[in-house]
């Protein structure tokens, strides 16, 4: 009896449909930092070859001749990351921006 009540109560509790864009952004920043601590990031031209969409800044980095530069994280110095981490559904509209994909815009 009790188990059924609790089960039903759980199912009926209204969980938000989406995780907040800030949370997703913070998770991304955390995981990228962990990736970097392990070694060089995959270079952007390889990411692109594997079907990942790049933002306008990443495109610029991807044409650089240095793999060392290409394996850096351009988001580390981008204000879009800061905005996304602190503002819910931040006004970021660049196609291919990894943080913009978490934001819902009307």
């Amino acid at each position: 009896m009790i188990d059924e009540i609790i089960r039903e109560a759980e199912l009926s509790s209204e969980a938000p449909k989406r995780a907040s864009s800030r949370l997703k952004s913070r998770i991304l920043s955390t995981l990228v930092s962990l990736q970097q601590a392990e070694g060089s990031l995959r270079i952007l031209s390889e990411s692109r070859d594997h079907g990942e969409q790049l933002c306008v800044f990443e495109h610029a980095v991807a044409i650089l001749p240095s793999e060392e530069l290409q394996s850096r994280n351009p988001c580390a110095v981008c204000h879009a990351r800061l905005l996304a981490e602190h503002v819910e559904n931040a006004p970021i509209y660049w196609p291919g921006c990894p943080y913009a994909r978490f934001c819902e815009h009307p």
Partner: protein
Amino acid sequence: MTGYSVPVHASDLQLAASICQRDRKAIARLIELHADSVHRYVWRRLTPKTDLADDIVQDVFVAAWRGMKTYSGDASLQTWLLSIARHKVEDYYRQTLKAPLESLETDQQPLFTADSVDLDAALDRSRQIGRAAKTLAHLPPGYAAILRWRYWDGQSTRDMATATGRTEKAVERLLARARDCFKTTWMKQEEEST
């Protein structure tokens, strides 16, 4: 029979491989695809203490990233992530129960046993469900956690005892008291509504 099986979730496997190669764009895709379902799962399991949901969701993704090399593609990435989430929620239950166990334990015998709680006949089902959610939200976190852990997860009292470093008897007593508290709160809410 060929004697071997091909992973059924090839696209998930490909995403996992990219993540293992430290592709940050792939990490973003993983979050975009699965953060909502993991968050919903954790949020529901933590109600009413949902303020910790974000921290636990982040822990789930960090754990997933650390263990990504072990992902075999036999189950979908979503299933795999939700199983990690389940363990993280259980860790939370364990921690919640370890702290308040002593304060919730008394020498009093519970007023009701599981079998004696029979509210089905008395209440309309839809009202019952809504009130049950409200009742759970009013219970001390330790009681809410132990009821969920026992009845939602189907965790045995023996396993709960092992996880919390208590005797099985102590866990059974706590469960009885949690049911008791559930019943009392339930009845109080009925009195208030009439």
